[in-house]
């Protein structure tokens, strides 16, 4: 018989997550009486100030939603608008959008693994402490992160709020010399990424088995990143335009982020959801490696998220290298666009998961209204559910510090990007 006790744990500021969030946990009589992930990042009202803006301004504005995944916002918006305007991208631009996006996955995932998540598993408070006991691994991670930034620089001139995306393609095209140099670096980084996967796989993690629905974009040709339909692990397969028929957002008064549900249930988006749904699209070399390290997919253990990010780093390096083979500088990096009234909808896979945009446009090419559903809001309900299940599995009788650390580890599995989780419109907004 375990001791029945009452504990209140309050983590006022979550460290090593992007943005501002807090967690309240109340245990009474040996059971969880209250568990709340509170997001108090101040609202920034992006959808509102996009209203009235010209379509050419949108990529530069939506980038500012998140400094860590601006490419996801830019590409999602651009592609939604290109679909509405009937713009057919040059094959060069279509391929380079994926390469550009790979840069962001590499940067964001490596930052998360080394600077945010891994220190937990080595008893370190941060990456600088971790670098004292695992200097080569941390330096390797920072190098990979830097390579992701360089890849974004090629097309966007800088990696935070890059300036290269325009409706119809890119503003400019990198020279062949720069691409050849990048290809050498990507080739050299692949063995480093393989070593990273083996390192990540060797980190002991809790055995946690949970039932949840994974949601990610899916594409018949490849591991979906910058294009695809929306799929779920229960067999759902819908176009982006049908999102609202299956996914609902609601506002809880204790959080500035909205909660999303899929058929009234929490669901998972992000690297592990993607691997669960799309692992058969991984190249043969990486599948052999996963078999070798013993990662069985689909996985129901969210503690495989760090490893999933490492796998996606390898994939993104591989894809960028493959797609830059035979690179040519195009006659023009963009094609012209003519605006058209209507509703632009699109979705892509941001590093943290499914990102969905909807813009109602007038015939002058200005925004009438906008709605953006980022990954963190979609994961928020799942994080709370996971915390409950995972804490019960872990055992509520651990000391408070151990419970707190366990909760933080669970939350960091989702890499919540709280600065972007704050700007939704509720579903039933009446508009004049």
């Amino acid at each position, binding site marked *: 018989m375990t001791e029945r006790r009452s504990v209140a744990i309050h983590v006022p*500021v*979550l*460290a*090593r*997550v*992007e*943005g*501002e969030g807090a967690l309240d946990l109340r245990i009474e009589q040996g059971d969880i009486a209250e568990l709340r992930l509170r997001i108090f990042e*101040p*609202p*920034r*009202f992006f*959808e*509102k*100030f996009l209203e009235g*803006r*010209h379509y050419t*301004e949108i990529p*530069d*504005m939506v980038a*500012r*939603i*998140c*400094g*860590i995944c*601006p490419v996801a916002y830019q590409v999602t918006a651009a592609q939604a608008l290109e679909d509405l305007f009937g713009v057919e991208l040059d094959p060069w631009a279509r391929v380079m959008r994926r390469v550009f996006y790979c840069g962001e996955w590499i*940067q964001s995932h490596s*930052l998360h693994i080394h*600077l945010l998540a891994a*220190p937990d598993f080595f008893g370190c*408070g*941060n*990456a*600088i*402490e971790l670098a004292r006991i695992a200097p080569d691994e*941390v*330096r390797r991670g*920072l*190098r990979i*992160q*830097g390579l992701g*930034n360089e890849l974004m620089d090629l097309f966007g*001139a*800088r*990696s*935070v*709020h890059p*300036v*290269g995306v325009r409706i119809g393609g*890119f*503003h*400019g095209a990198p020279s062949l010399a720069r691409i050849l140099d990048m290809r050498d670096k990507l080739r050299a980084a692949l063995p480093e990424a393989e070593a990273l996967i083996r390192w990540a796989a060797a980190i002991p993690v809790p055995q946690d088995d949970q039932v949840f629905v994974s949601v990610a974009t899916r594409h018949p040709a490849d591991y979906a990143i910058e294009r695809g339909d929306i799929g779920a692990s229960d067999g759902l397969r819908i176009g982006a335009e049908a999102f609202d028929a299956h996914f609902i957002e609601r*506002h809880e*008064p204790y959080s*500035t982020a909205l909660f999303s549900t899929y058929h009234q249930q929490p669901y998972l988006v992000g690297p592990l959801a993607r691997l669960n749904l799309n692992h058969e699209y991984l190249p043969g070399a990486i599948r052999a490696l996963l078999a070798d390290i013993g990662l069985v997919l689909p996985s129901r253990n969210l503690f495989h998220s760090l490893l999933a990010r490492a796998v996606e780093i390898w994939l993104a390096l591989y894809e960028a290298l493959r797609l830059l083979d035979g690179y040519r500088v195009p006659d023009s990096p963009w094609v012209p666009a003519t605006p058209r009234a209507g509703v632009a909808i699109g979705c892509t896979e941001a590093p943290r998961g499914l990102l969905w945009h909807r813009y109602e446009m007038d015939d002058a090419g200005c925004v009438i209204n906008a709605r953006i559903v980022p990954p963190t809001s979609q994961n928020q309900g799942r994080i709370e559910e996971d915390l409950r299940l995972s804490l019960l599995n872990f055992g509520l009788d651990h000391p408070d510090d151990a419970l707190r650390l366990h909760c933080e580890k669970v939350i960091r599995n989702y890499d919540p990007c709280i*600065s972007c989780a704050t700007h*939704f*419109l*509720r579903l039933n*907004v009446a508009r004049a």
Partner: protein
Amino acid sequence: MSQQTVHPGKPRVAVHKFSSCDGCQLSFLNLGEALLTLAERIDLVHFAEAGPLDPDTGVDVAFVEGSVSTPEDLERIQHIRAHSGLLIAIGACATSGGIQGLRNQAKGAEWVAQIYSHPEAIASLEHSTPISCHVKVDFELWGCPVSGPQILAVINALLLGVTPRDNTDKVCTECKRQGYPCVMVTHGIACMGPVTRAGCGALCPSLGRDCYGCYGPAENANTDALAIQFGHLGLTPAAIVRRFQSINSQAPVFLAAADKLRAG
């Protein structure tokens, strides 16, 4: 009393976040191996995104990202000021109120009600304001985002005991120095370079596109002349207003330019 000089040994440094996208903090986290070198030269006391949490200990230098936009922010920035020797505002949000400052021209309360079903639970001030509206700021680094080299230059200056400097000249000067063809002269593109503060290295013209003013107003910016030029290029008055009302909409020079156009 707050110290006015940087500690001679290993200075204590804090990085604080207010309303923002976290992109300027990334100027630290994207330093790569230089981040580890930096960690040997300074003592990072508080930097929530990187791990260290200690907002209450006094520091020699506090970097502040983000704008003041909630009632709680008003108290927090006073607390930070009182516990910091030097306070350095980094990025567009901290120096001008940022892109979210666009709400200052609108009815913020209505927006809350349109977005949230429990608007009473959302603590948000009517305006998004820069740090200098609330406390004394010792140095400002403009830019959306600020770059790693800008941050390192400031830290190195402080470590060497000299006053940090920032380039207040125009993007045009950087653009010319790089030898990029002027996008306005050669392609008739409405570029904000003539009124925008340097520091990025003229990234947008390097791709053949217009600068959109993300580093805020330059010193002695002639916004009147640029607005006339934009008119000649075919922009409507409303479109010209939007050029000045974007990332740094509440920077006084850009706000005045927009107000003048709106007044007709």
